[in-house]
């Protein structure tokens, strides 16, 4: 739904491991240090336990990994297909292309409007199933995503927009993960030090700021910076300047336009990773195996770096896929604020103009970004967790 909800989820899931009904306080205080727990494990689940017991050290490691990733990728591909088709149905239900012609002069009759829509495969008199089949065939066979209610081809619009939004979402996601994880690592070994408190304060504050407010805040800061430095270095509107030519100037120009939107998306995106990763890392630090590592002679900081961090990154990598829809949502608002001609802005336009095919293309783009993120996440998990390779 939004970055915030994604962040909340992962945060609460991080605390899931240490979530106990909170009753035994005095006793807890006694039990915690001595680390003697009743010898109770899940006794009543032989089904569950056997799956874990029956393992053979796998040969053909590499092949297994590839198969694992491929299987997952196929799953995600299926997800894209289902999501896109579901959006088509929903969009056809909820968007009414006829309303685009209602205000035009000369006033047309309903039949005239329907006739006008017919060449674009939007005629409401044609059964939904037929329109869907027609649309699907065009997409699959010709990669033709259809036309808008006034006949503009969707493909013309999305070509450059995909690139524009793609770089924004990718850059923001990568920076968010890097910043979030780096912050959590830099604070976890000194829990409740000033740096930990400060970063947490900032993150919790950013967590509460609406995307629009944050984006506008970044715009203001950008304008102020430009003014005080006396140059036009940071651009606050558009994704490119219309007049720049040549390869290097173009690149530089694109970069200058990219900085502020990416910054505003990252500021909101890193928060979830920071707070989640901090919790996960603190849980890992409290774990028995970190204690064992310290008992073999590692300092606390070394044990955290070598043992806790890698294990605690695994859930974060898994959650990467679920974070991308949130980034995309953020991108919709950010592109609107910064006047970027990207997929997000296109989305608001298509809905406002009842453009069924355009909206579906945006949904397909969002799903594809999610799937790409998910596959990358799966690969990251394989890299981080050697157990996946063995099984």
């Amino acid at each position, binding site marked *: 739904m939004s970055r915030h909800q994604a962040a909340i989820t992962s945060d609460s899931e991080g605390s899931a491991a240490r979530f106990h009904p909170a009753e035994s306080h005095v006793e807890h205080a006694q039990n915690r240090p001595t680390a003697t727990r009743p010898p109770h494990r899940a006794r009543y689940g032989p089904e569950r336990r056997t799956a874990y017991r029956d393992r053979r050290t796998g040969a053909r490691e590499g092949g297994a990994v590839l198969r694992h990733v491929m299987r997952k990728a196929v799953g995600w591909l299926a997800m894209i297909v289902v999501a896109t088709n579901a959006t088509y149905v929903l969009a056809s239900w909820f968007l009414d292309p006829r309303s685009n012609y209602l205000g035009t002069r000369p006033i047309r009759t309903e039949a005239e409007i329907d006739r006008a829509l017919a060449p674009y495969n939007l005629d409401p008199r044609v059964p939904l199933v037929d329109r869907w089949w027609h649309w699907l065939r065009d997409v699959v066979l010709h990669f033709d995503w259809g036309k808008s209610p006034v006949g503009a081809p969707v493909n013309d619009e999305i070509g450059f927009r995909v690139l524009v939004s793609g770089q924004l979402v990718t850059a923001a996601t990568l920076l968010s993960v890097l910043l979030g994880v780096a912050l959590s690592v830099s604070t976890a070994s000194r829990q409740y030090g000033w740096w930990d408190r400060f970063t947490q304060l900032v993150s919790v504050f950013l967590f*509460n700021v609406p995307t629009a407010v944050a984006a506008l805040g970044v715009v203001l800061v950008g304008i102020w910076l430009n003014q005080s430095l006396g140059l036009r270095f940071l651009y606050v509107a558009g994704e490119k300047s219309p007049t720049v030519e040549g390869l290097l100037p173009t690149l530089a120009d694109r970069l200058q336009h990219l900085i502020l939107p990416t910054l505003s998306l990252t500021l909101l995106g890193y928060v979830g990773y920071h707070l989640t990763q901090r919790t996960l890392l603190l849980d890992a630090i409290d774990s028995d195996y970190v204690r064992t590592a310290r008992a073999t002679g590692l300092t606390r900081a070394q044990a955290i770096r070598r043992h806790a961090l890698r294990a605690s990154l695994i859930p974060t990598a898994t959650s990467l896929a679920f974070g991308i829809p949130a980034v995309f949502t953020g991108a919709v608002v950010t592109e609107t604020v910064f006047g970027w001609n990207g997929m997000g802005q296109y989305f608001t336009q298509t809905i*406002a103009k009842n453009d069924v095919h355009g909206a579906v293309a945006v949904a397909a783009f969002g799903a594809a970004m999610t799937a790409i993120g998910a596959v990358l996440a799966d690969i990251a998990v394989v890299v981080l967790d050697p157990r996946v390779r063995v099984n």
Partner: protein
Amino acid sequence: MTTSVIPSAARPAAGSGRLYLRRFARNRGALLGVALFALLVLFSAFGGLFSPYAPTDADFTALTQPPGAAHYFGTNQGGNDVYAQAVHGLQRSLVIAVSVSALTIVLAALIGAGAAYLGGRVEKLTLAVIHFLLVVPSFLILALVSHRLAGDWRVLIVVLTVFGWMTTARVVWSLSTSLRERDYVLAAEFMGVRPWRIVVRHIIPNLGSLLVVNLTLGVVATVLSETALSFLGFGVQTPDVSLGTMLADGSGTITSAPWLFVFPAGLVVLLTVSMTLVGDGLRDALDPTSVSAASGGAR
């Protein structure tokens, strides 16, 4: 053998409620959050009494006026009193956020815990639906649906609830899968307690602190979602006013008429920050094993 076990004096018999309250009250941030939230609720309910203007009144003698004695928060391009609009917008946003959050929690608890306990096909199917809705940019679907039905804030509540339960449900589910393995759940099964009664009596109550915390954080999430939707023009729509529509109106004139943006933005942030503080305080009070609570006294 001893026929009567002497109750040990050190183990408190007092109800847990008082203990939670004590822990919560010790957390200054949480108290600040409660105070802020209470002020905002009072403001939204009675703030209108201090201004002669209604949110829809247009004062054509004062267009785009900065804050002053007549119009505390200034006026917008149409001559509407920003103060009156802010009171009304806050009220809208609050009502939407609180009801969506409450409905979402109920839905998520029943679906998540039910799926986890019943297991089998029910669980698989529920999870598939949850995962699907999670990875699909549900914001798009939300925008689609609310665009068509919008204008009406009550419809918005329904739509936000229908597309907002999955995240919490997934958390509830993952915690319930460990709860369903608990001995007391098994014991209840062997006593012949019926499945749904086990869910309602043994599983959901033991997620109580999580649900309470998520209730407050859900308010934050809903405020932000509603703001984003309305900002893009898909949520509450004119002539109705919410904090999100005010942000959208004000964002165009941020340099020339900043008061149009600053006041609603400030209210949104105050609202979300207050609820986050309350949520954090509740988490620490209800769940003393959490990392932040371990040194709660030191904060």
